[in-house]
């Protein structure tokens, strides 16, 4: 669906995107995370045929960037960082203008469809300039979808929105996932990425990690089980520590935190050992690392490597 190979973009001395190789499946929601200036917007602009790469290449929906840009623009939708609406025009006219540029066949029907879908139909005749930030963002999303693109690029779709508007936009993106569109989602909101994305790339000029949110957690942190006990006794700690598959054990309040390999197989043994030692187990769970932990760890590691190498890069 979307493939990049050693995609690189330089602006003079500034390296914005370095050697990016990715492959997105059809119908996938792909999270693209990175700090400000990481090159996320530059990547989106290259993949939507707005700017050309310095080296490397990419195919989007089977069309090559830099060679078949018109075909790509016809088939992808983009929500730019800023909604970029014509504030003096009504919501309906804003959409109708873009529908004509995208050569949409039944303009009135498509405009109505998306205005209704995003809850803007009743305000279709009002100028976009009178809309709240959330409404503008919804109108910009409608604009990106008018021509039914197979791939949708969303650049910070919920930034600067209040929680309620952000929630609505997020729900809408989730509904698009069910329509089978490929969605490339640039976001700073890690919780949003965690909830919406099938896979996540952490990016800071170059690709730092790429996997499902769950697999990223596993790659970066050992799995830690939490055993809630009625009362913790040092004997329980020693007993669990003696098990060969256990990496570390520490107690905290009435909990034992056990870092363990392959908990699906080994948890029953731990539970049995604790019960045999006289522990009363109330319940067992897994300590879940947030995506924020993963993101911050990757970015920090990258900055340390970067400063060590004297890198000069920006987005």
């Amino acid at each position: 669906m979307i493939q990049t190979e050693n995609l690189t973009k330089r602006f003079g001395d500034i390296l914005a995107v370095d050697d990016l190789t990715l492959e997105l499946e059809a119908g996938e929601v792909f999270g693209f995370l990175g700090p400000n200036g990481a090159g996320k917007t530059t990547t989106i602009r290259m993949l939507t045929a707005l700017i050309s790469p310095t080296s490397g290449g990419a195919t989007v929906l089977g069309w090559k960037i830099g060679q078949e840009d018109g075909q790509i623009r016809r088939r992808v939708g983009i929500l730019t960082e800023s909604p970029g609406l014509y504030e003096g025009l009504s919501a309906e006219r804003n959409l109708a203008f873009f529908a004509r540029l995208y050569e949409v066949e039944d303009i009135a029907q498509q405009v109505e469809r998306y205005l209704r879908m995003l809850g803007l139909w009743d305000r279709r005749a009002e100028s976009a300039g009178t809309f709240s930030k959330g409404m503008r963002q919804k109108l910009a999303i409608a604009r990106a979808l008018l021509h039914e693109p197979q791939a949708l690029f969303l650049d910070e779709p919920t930034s600067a929105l209040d929680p309620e508007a952000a929630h609505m936009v997020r729900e809408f993106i989730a509904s698009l996932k069910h329509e089978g569109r490929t969605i490339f989602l640039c976001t700073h909101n890690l919780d949003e990425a965690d909830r919406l994305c099938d896979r996540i790339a952490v990016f800071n000029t170059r690709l730092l990690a790429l996997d499902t949110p769950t697999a990223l957690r596993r790659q970066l942190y050992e799995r830690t089980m939490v055993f809630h006990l009625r009362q913790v006794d040092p004997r329980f700690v020693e007993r669990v520590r003696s098990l060969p598959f256990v990496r570390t054990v520490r107690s905290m309040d009435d909990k034992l935190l056990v870092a363990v390999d392959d908990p699906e197989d080994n948890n029953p043994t731990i539970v049995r050992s604790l019960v045999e030692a006289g522990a009363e187990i109330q319940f067992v769970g897994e300590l879940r690392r947030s995506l924020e932990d993963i993101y911050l760890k990757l970015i920090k590691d990258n900055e340390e490597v970067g400063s060590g190498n004297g890198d000069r890069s920006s987005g």
Partner: protein
Amino acid sequence: MDKIWVIMRKEWSEVFKNRFVLFTVAFLPLILVALPLIMLYFTGSSGGDLSGLSGTDMPTRFAELCGGMTESECGQYFLVSQFMLLFMLMPLAIPVTIASYSIVGEKTTHTLEPVLATPVTTLELLAGKALAAAVPGVTVTWIGFVIFEVGAHLIATSPVVLARLTEPLWLLAIFLIGPLLAIASVSVAVMVSSRAHDPRVAEQLSMLVILPLLAVFFGQIAGLFLINEKLIMWMAVALVIIDAGLFAFAIQLFQRETILTRWK
């Protein structure tokens, strides 16, 4: 062609909601129509005593155009003839305000990137924007000229002068040179607009396009040359070439990547 028309309609929807732009489009024609009519009125009602003009103030070469006229009629015609150039100034100056804002304005309001992400070509985008600026300028010039002609028939006393105002020289100047000048003007303004970073700078720089015509205006007053039908035809040929060159150059100068990545 469809997309050019779509862009033109969108530009008009936006532009003519701005009262200042409406004012700039309407003000210049009002002044440039009123001035020659007032001049015709006063020169006609003063008994046509403009004989002094032919001897001292009027360029001697202008007399070539005065065949069959009395001295005072020639003087009256000389004065009014200066306004032919001002009628040619209208389609040059009026579109500049609209065209100079066209690209840089969209960049500053962040509307350009979504447009560039559509399958619209640079030619379609610039042609749409250029024509959206040129058409109102040419239209108000033509309307202004028709009002001037009607007014002149109501005011002027000399049928000889009246007849001169509908001669091919005037019609060519207004209906042929006018649109060609408008295209040159908007091509320059769109070019400046796609390179400038500030709408105000774009407008100021684009206004420089009227300088060559002002040179012609003062050149005629000074008697350096005379605008006759032959010169108008040569001007038309030259303008067709200049317009094609300027528009092609405007397309070359429109660098999507630079506009998106370097402008803040």
